């Protein structure tokens, strides 16, 4: 049913989430919101890497653009909540477009290094201009949930609803784009850009388009992230965020959207697991500080060594292999 009627599938999943969000405690609801945000951000990397063969390590910088754009729109023009998210998407997409024009000519390690430089540099640039509020950053307050939802409706649940809805819409839309003419062009470019060019695909334009859409999604994720923590500041988009997102994308498998939940859930679960371990064994502070990094990095290296295409793709290939026999 899910294959034939994706819209029905997505709606059903949304309803399940809605029911679940009423049954679990606040912390889980907040983590759910974080998962939804990571899903969008990871999908933006998968779009770029898996479907156009480019790897960006600077996704955090694009998230930052989205977050700052949303906060500025809200604080200066008092834009309504839905509009701030649209502005975040547009601003980040514009940034991605400009980056894409330069980056479409780069490949592999050059692009990775250039985007890495962007991720390291952009937060410190945001620090320098007073309009961005310096080290403290800007407040980004979307206000309390509407009164019609009842008195017991918590702020976190409101965040979760917005983030989950945005993630569902974004993934559904992205899935359709992937199956469209553009998606097929990207796959062709990824497979062999010379062959794609000979088949009449404008490689440069397609890469820039992939960059722009990917950046727009990243901007949405950035605005949502800013929403859940109520502020945007350089510290909210550190290099570690870019790395985590790249990790999430690799764990999900960069060639399909199907596994996008795996990476997002892992990223949220790891700090939780570490907390449990630390409190169970009463470990020292250095374990609490470094265990997450250790787990993530080990997982990353093992994944690229043994399941470079991601678990979903791996299972599919194995199934096809077995079917042939």
């Amino acid at each position: 049913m899910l294959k034939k009627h994706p819209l029905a599938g997505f709606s059903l999943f949304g309803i399940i989430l809605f029911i679940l969000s009423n049954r679990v405690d606040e912390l889980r609801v907040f983590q759910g919101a974080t998962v939804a945000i990571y899903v969008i951000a990871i999908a933006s990397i998968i779009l770029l890497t898996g479907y156009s063969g480019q790897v960006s390590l600077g996704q955090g910088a694009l998230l930052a653009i989205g977050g700052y754009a949303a906060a500025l729109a809200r604080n200066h023009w008092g834009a309504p909540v839905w509009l701030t998210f649209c502005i975040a998407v547009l601003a980040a997409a514009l940034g991605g477009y400009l980056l894409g024009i330069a980056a479409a000519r780069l490949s592999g390690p050059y692009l990775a290094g250039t985007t890495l430089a962007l991720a390291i540099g952009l937060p410190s640039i945001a620090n320098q201009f007073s309009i961005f509020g310096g080290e403290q950053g800007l407040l980004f307050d979307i206000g309390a949930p509407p009164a019609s939802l009842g008195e017991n409706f918590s702020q976190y649940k409101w965040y979760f609803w917005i983030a989950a809805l945005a993630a569902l819409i974004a993934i559904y839309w992205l899935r359709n784009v992937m199956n469209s003419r553009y998606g097929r062009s990207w796959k062709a470019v990824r497979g062999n850009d010379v062959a794609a060019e000979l088949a009449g695909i404008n490689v440069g334009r397609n890469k820039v388009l992939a960059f722009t859409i990917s950046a727009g999604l990243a901007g949405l994720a950035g605005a949502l992230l800013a929403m859940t923590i109520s502020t945007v500041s350089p510290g909210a988009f550190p290099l570690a965020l870019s790395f985590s997102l790249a990790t999430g994308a690799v764990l999900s498998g960069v060639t399909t959207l199907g596994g996008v939940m795996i990476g997002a859930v892992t990223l949220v679960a790891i700090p939780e697991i570490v907390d449990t371990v630390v409190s169970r064994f009463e470990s020292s502070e250095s374990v609490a500080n470094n265990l997450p990094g250790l787990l993530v990095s080990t997982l990353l290296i093992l994944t690229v060594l043994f399941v470079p295409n991601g678990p979903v793709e791996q299972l599919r290939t194995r199934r096809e292999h077995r079917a042939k026999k």
Partner: protein
Amino acid sequence: MAQFINMLLIGIGAGSIYALMAIAMVLVWRSTRVINFAQAGMALLSTYIGFELVQKTGNFWIALPLAMILGAFFSAVIEILLIRTLIRHSTSGPVAGIVPIIATLGLLGLIRAMIGFIWGNQDIQIQPPLSKVGFKLGQETIALSPMNLLVLLTVLAMVLVLGFIFQKTSLGLSLRASAYSPEIAQLAGIRVGAIRTIGWAIAGAAGAAAGLLQTVNGTGAVSPDSLEFSLLLTFGFIAAVIGGLESLPGAVLGAVVLGLVLACVQIYISGTFVFVVAFALLLLVLLIRPQGFIGTKAGRRA
């Protein structure tokens, strides 16, 4: 005038350290076609080892070569354990290009976490072996201290030794042949696998020197999450790329140019624009002369 001289001194001083990092990246790129983003982590580890050695021996100039030797050793171990496995498992298809990038990033995180486990996440402090007060030129104090001078001389000595190895010894010939064409080198009887490991080892030593010298030349403080090292990695990468990524003289030239440009921005405009300018320089070179300052046209497809 004094300002101009200071700019030159600061630029060349900073550039000399970027040059070591750029050389490390170029060596790794030439031997295994991998941009080693973990170079920052390896340099960091060597710096921590250098810190321990300074504590034990009390002498920076004994600690530096020892840290470089250990840095070379770690780098070789990483090549043998990780990069060889990676090449053996090498996949074709869409992810082939990103696998080494992701693997070295994972390694960077792993090294940082392990340093945190061993030494904790607080800053450690390495005492500079020499005075950091600038020399006097008449009335003016110029931006060149005994420490800066020694860093400069050390880097110069290392670059000369490396140049000698590459141009005059049979090891250098093997290194160049393996980078030029692994298959032909293998047919000519060069053990390409071992040569690759040596390339990584030299890169590890250069990175170790870059890390230690950058630390004592700067504030002397390091932590596992040091921004200083992220910047060192980025500027080393930028220097390597604008220099051509294939050539060692190119890496040195790129680093000195980058150092001078950044010093110029810092002194005449504002320190806040250093990063923007470095980034713009990288994009500009990639767009106008993608093969770098020194590099042949056929060098790469960007």
